[in-house]
């Protein structure tokens, strides 16, 4: 082994990967909630709505419409910008197109934390690999393999459905990657809850060897189909063009068809909605001085615990 391989992690002994410390506790809480539920159901239940406090907090999902298309000189990726917590919109303008390498980007659908952290991890691994192998350009298939190997290892528990696209010296490539680790290499693909609406647009209008302009317009129309017809997708269209010459155009909020500003302007806003200071009761005030940015030395004596 040469000095260029890093088989020993510099942070050896530091925690790596997922922490399973709370598995036992969560199972206990789930069990308690279930027995509480059966107790509550035995008593009177007049309300038609089920209490949402009876389940563990749901992970934020990205609902989502994500798409990718290969065109003559590269790939175009597209995504909507809505993230949901069950049926509530958590983020109206989140970023679903993630950076993997200068020539590779990845759209993510599924659990927001999973897509974010998975793509960050693989991006980091790719950068280390570039450093360890002579500083060349990353290949898209490498990112695909790293992602699928990780997702398969977690047997689908990492809920990340990805559209990976990029250009390397073999040309433009587009992959779809499922949470359980299966992959597909395709000229065009859609994923997420809005994938059916977007795919309908692709199946009607996709052609091989489109120009960049045609490809971008097609991607935009596909995402818009998802935004307006799928409830899990909404707000704005993000696009990302990765060209064969290595240049990238990140179109963050490329199209914003859902600005609420004009709608709000059309309402003559009542004065009761403008709450001046003094509207809300102040019960008390305390002032806590901010501590300075220094280091305080504490004299601590440590004594062994008697068992």
């Amino acid at each position, binding site marked *: 082994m040469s000095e260029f391989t890093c088989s020993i992690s510099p942070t050896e002994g530091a925690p790596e990967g997922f922490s399973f410390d709370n598995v036992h506790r969560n199972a206990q809480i789930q069990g308690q909630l279930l027995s509480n539920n059966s107790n509550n159901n035995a008593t009177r239940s007049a309300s038609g709505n089920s209490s949402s406090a009876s389940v563990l907090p749901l992970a934020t999902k990205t609902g989502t419409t994500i798409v990718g298309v290969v065109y003559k000189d590269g790939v175009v990726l597209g995504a909507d910008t809505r993230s949901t917590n069950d049926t509530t919109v958590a983020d109206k303008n989140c970023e679903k197109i993630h950076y993997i390498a200068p020539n590779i980007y990845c759209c993510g659908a599924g659990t927001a934390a999973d897509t974010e952290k998975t793509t960050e991890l693989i991006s980091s691994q790719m950068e280390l690999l570039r450093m360890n192998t002579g500083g060349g350009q990353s290949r898209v298939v490498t990112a695909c393999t790293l992602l699928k190997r990780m997702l398969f290892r977690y047997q689908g528990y990492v809920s990340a459905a990805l559209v990976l696209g990029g250009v390397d010296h073999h040309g433009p490539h587009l992959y779809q990657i499922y949470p359980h680790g299966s992959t597909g290499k395709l000229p065009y693909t859609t994923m997420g809850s809005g994938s059916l609406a977007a795919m309908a647009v692709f199946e009607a209008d996709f052609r091989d060897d489109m120009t960049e302009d045609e490809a971008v317009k097609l991607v935009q129309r596909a995402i818009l189909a998802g935004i307006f017809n799928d409830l899990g997708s909404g707000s704005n269209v993000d696009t990302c063009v990765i060209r064969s010459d290595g240049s990238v155009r990140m179109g963050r909020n490329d199209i914003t068809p*859902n600005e609420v500003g004009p709608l709000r302007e059309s309402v003559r806003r009542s004065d009761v909605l403008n709450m001046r200071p003094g509207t*809300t009761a102040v019960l008390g005030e305390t002032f806590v001085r901010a501590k300075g940015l220094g280091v305080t030395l504490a004299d601590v004596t440590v004594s062994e615990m008697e068992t």
Partner: protein
Amino acid sequence: SKLHPLTGRCVLGSAGCKTDVDQLRSVLDIKMKVYAHNHRKPMATPSVAQMLGNTLYYKRFFPYYSFNVLAGIDSEGKGAVYSYDAIGSFERTPFSASGSGQSFLIPLMDNVISHKNRLDERRDLPAEEVVEIVKDAFLTAGERDIYTGDAVDIMVITKDGIDKQTFQLKAD
């Protein structure tokens, strides 16, 4: 439409399972026709309120999956709003909201309509101002609830009749 006029001064709004809502309206329409036939006058809003409650409880053990709000003008010419659950428990209230977006609307209306948790002076709100508040509230619910959107039907009920208007919301 999610709003259904039962008389010229009384409107029923319902959330829940559409087929049960449609059936409930059908049943109520028939009962109101029979009443008007027998009493030679249209049903007064408090009576409609009671009848809706009874109709829902009649199916206590196989309920209409319908969460209703009844609004109209009472016999004294004042506005009346009644809130219901699926099996007919009802109460006259200053305001009501039902459906997937209710969690976004109710706290806002508690503060603005009922003037809860505010120290500034309460003032009477004219109809036009309340309509604008409702539009603003629905814009907010439409932002955060995926099921709320497209458009809002607004009906203003006075002793002189029902004024209908439609307000466009975001379609995403």
